């Protein structure tokens, strides 16, 4: 038979024991979560015209300088890929140093110091495709972050909090587009953020400004009078890897099925 003293003692222990895990849980009512969600009047979107891209790589050079990505480290927030399809059905694709120094040779970099020269008359089609973060509407990189260090700003840009990132690398694995990497200096996850310090001041991103051919453009897709939004909403544009359901916000003109 349990004594009154023991009963009270045990009750106090159980209550104290249960309250510890409960203190770690934040209980949210659906109404409160709904109230926080707000629509922004800005949603940044990017438009790439692959016909206009000549593979000069000025965008990559400008991006690395603007965002202080160590220039000689083989990592970059944006890069340009070259695709060469031959008449006998072979596909070659390369992006030496992310095309930081452009494409200055017909020789295609196969990696491991091997190069393949494709003759002009063997080429069926060949073109350049600039790549950068798609600032997805359903960003898988944000979902996997265990600490809330990467997030989507109200205007749609996905950013990394360098003070909060623990460097676990989940987001780098989760991104289907391979746009994330570790910053060689800060040792935190790094990615394109549409030059957030520039677009919020009314400037264009460094890559858009550096492109001499207008192959890259940025605009606010929620503004019906925005010239870029008009092109995206009224013309035929493609997105990368639509099968992932990530809803990318970087749109491409002249996308080929070989481009992944």
């Amino acid at each position, binding site marked *: 038979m349990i004594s009154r003293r023991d009963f009270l003692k045990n009750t106090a222990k159980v209550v104290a*024991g249960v309250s*510890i895990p409960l*203190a*770690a849980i934040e209980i*949210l009512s659906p109404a409160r*979560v709904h109230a*926080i*969600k*707000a629509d*922004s009047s800005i949603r940044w979107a990017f438009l790439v015209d*692959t*016909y*206009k*891209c*000549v*593979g*000069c*790589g*000025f965008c990559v*050079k*400008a991006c690395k*300088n*603007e*965002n202080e990505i160590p220039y000689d480290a083989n990592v970059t927030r944006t890069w340009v890929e070259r695709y*060469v399809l031959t008449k006998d059905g072979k596909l070659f694709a390369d992006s030496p140093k992310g095309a930081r*120094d*452009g*494409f*200055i*040779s*017909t020789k295609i970099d196969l990696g491991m110091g091997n190069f393949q020269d494709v003759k*002009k008359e063997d*080429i069926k*089609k*060949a*073109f*350049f495709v600039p790549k950068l973060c798609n600032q997805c509407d359903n960003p898988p990189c*944000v979902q996997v972050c265990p600490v*809330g260090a990467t*997030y*989507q*700003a*109200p205007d749609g840009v996905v*950013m990394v*909090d360098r*003070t*909060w990132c623990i460097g676990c690398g989940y987001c780098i694995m989760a991104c289907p587009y391979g746009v994330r990497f570790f910053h060689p200096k800060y040792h935190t996850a790094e990615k394109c*953020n549409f030059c*957030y*310090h*520039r677009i*919020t*001041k009314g*400037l264009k991103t*460094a890559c858009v*400004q*550096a492109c*001499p*051919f207008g192959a890259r453009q940025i605009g606010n897709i929620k503004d019906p009078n925005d010239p870029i939004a008009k092109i995206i909403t009224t013309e035929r544009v493609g997105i990368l890897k639509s099968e992932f359901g990530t809803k990318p916000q970087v749109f491409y003109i*002249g996308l080929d099925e070989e481009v992944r």
Partner: protein
Amino acid sequence: MKNHVFRPLWVVIGLVVLILIIRPFYVPKDFGIHERGYMYGWYRKGNIEDWKKVSVKYQGKEYCKTCHQDKVTSIDRTPHAIIQCENCHGPAIEHPSEPPKLAIDRTRGQCLRCHAKLAYPSSDRANIRGIDPDKHNPDIECVMCHNPHNPNLEGLK
């Protein structure tokens, strides 16, 4: 309750309690759920301002024009008008105060970015006048003969 199972358990519980006590002090006040909801908007709000504070390095042609109007107007009459000054001259940052002098990229590679001939159908690269870098004076810099501010062949030095 004195055995080898419970002793480490108390240590673990102690650690959990300690972490829970530290947490409210360690986690910033603006950390929480924001506009994009729980799945995408769980973050420290102050980080948005941190990113906005990053300094602008590429100031753009209009900035160069405020002092170097003569250079900008003369290059604007040539096909190179589409190229930003800073693509070759380097980012202005706070020029003229910092850096007082910009490091100009006069290398052959800089010109070859566009002018190495790549006859690629369905890319505008094929339409740019270009050379074969291995055959066209491979040992000397382009700027020995060509003036990038007046790139017409008639303007050869």
